[in-house]
């Protein structure tokens, strides 16, 4: 009963489908066959519907149990892997940047250390230089002073001896010329006065 009404309904729908197809221009151009469309042969409907549901159910089972989980797994795995790789690349980049910064800091430190060392050495050299110079100057001054003192002494000595020689010579010359005996004191005084006057 139900099957009968289903068949009747499907026939009606089929009839309507003919109207549709006739409305399509492409179909209108090719409709020369006659004898009705094989698609509207109601006797083939049960077998087609039956096999449609059998094959579709089979495919649905295979898809939902095997194919779809497998594809989803692989896609998820890949997505994770890609994100992981990007993450790793970023992390390594950050690490490399840290190393680079460290390196640059070390270089800068070394440079400033070297600078300090050079300056310190220069300072030391300058200091020792100045010290040596001062010492040398002092020594020179001492030597000069000593030499000057010695010169003055010798000069005094020379003058002293010159004075005695002069007074002796004066006394002797006086004695010889005038026959007078002059005392040493007098001669000395006269020589001194003459030297002072002469000088």
């Amino acid at each position, binding site marked *: 009963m139900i099957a009968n009404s289903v068949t009747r309904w499907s026939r*009606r*729908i089929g009839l309507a489908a003919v*109207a549709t197809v006739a409305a399509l221009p492409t179909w209108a151009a090719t409709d020369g066959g006659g004898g009705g469309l094989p698609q509207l042969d109601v006797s083939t409907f049960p077998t087609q519907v039956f096999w449609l549901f059998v094959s579709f159910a089979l495919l649905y089972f295979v898809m939902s149990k095997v194919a779809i989980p497998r594809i989803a797994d692989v896609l998820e795995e*890949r997505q994770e892997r*890609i994100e992981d790789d990007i993450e790793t690349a970023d992390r390594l*980049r950050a690490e*490399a940047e840290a190393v680079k910064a460290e*390196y640059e800091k070390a270089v800068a430190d070394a440079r400033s250390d070297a600078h300090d060392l050079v300056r310190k050495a220069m300072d030391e050299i300058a200091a020792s230089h100045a010290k040596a110079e001062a010492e040398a100057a002092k020594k020179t001054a001492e030597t000069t002073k000593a030499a000057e003192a010695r010169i003055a002494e010798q000069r005094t000595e020379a003058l002293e001896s010159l004075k005695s020689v002069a007074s002796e010579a004066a006394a002797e010359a006086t004695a010889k010329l005038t026959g007078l005996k002059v005392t040493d004191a007098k001669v000395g005084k006269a020589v001194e006065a003459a030297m002072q006057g002469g000088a």
Partner: protein
Amino acid sequence: MVAPLRRGSGKHGIRRVRGCAEVRIAALAGPASAGLVRGMDDRKSPPSLEDLADRVKRVRGGQDAARRKDLESGLPSSAMGLAFRVGVELVAGVIVGAAIGYGLDQWLGTKPWMLIVFFFLGAAGGMMNVYRAATGKGLSVGYANTADGDGSNEGGPKGSEHSDGGSPDGGKKEG
């Protein structure tokens, strides 16, 4: 799309970063390893870290952009897809109307009035469907002027995506 992305950013990128880090470490180690550094430099100078940062950013941005593009391609709005849909909608409405009219005639014995009435009602229903398809309202039953049904269909995800995409830009401008 996926494969070149991998090739670009994955193995090689990381290998180069490692090479780069090694060079830096070698440079730190002192003049004894200078020869090693020179050798590596001669083979291939490692890309700069800025370059790598750019590439990481680009790959991440590319993924986002691809995702956004996927979201934006919605219904088939091409003329061809529309043409394929519209022609059949009208006919289907007429078929259903005629079939129901015919059935009612058989049941109520009012031949042929129900067929005629439902033929036109079916045509009207088909036209409603054509109208909805042609105005890009999808094929939802109900009137287009309610608008929220359609808004949740297409506008919703797109709008939220735009606001998501917009906020970092705005933040950047403010900063």
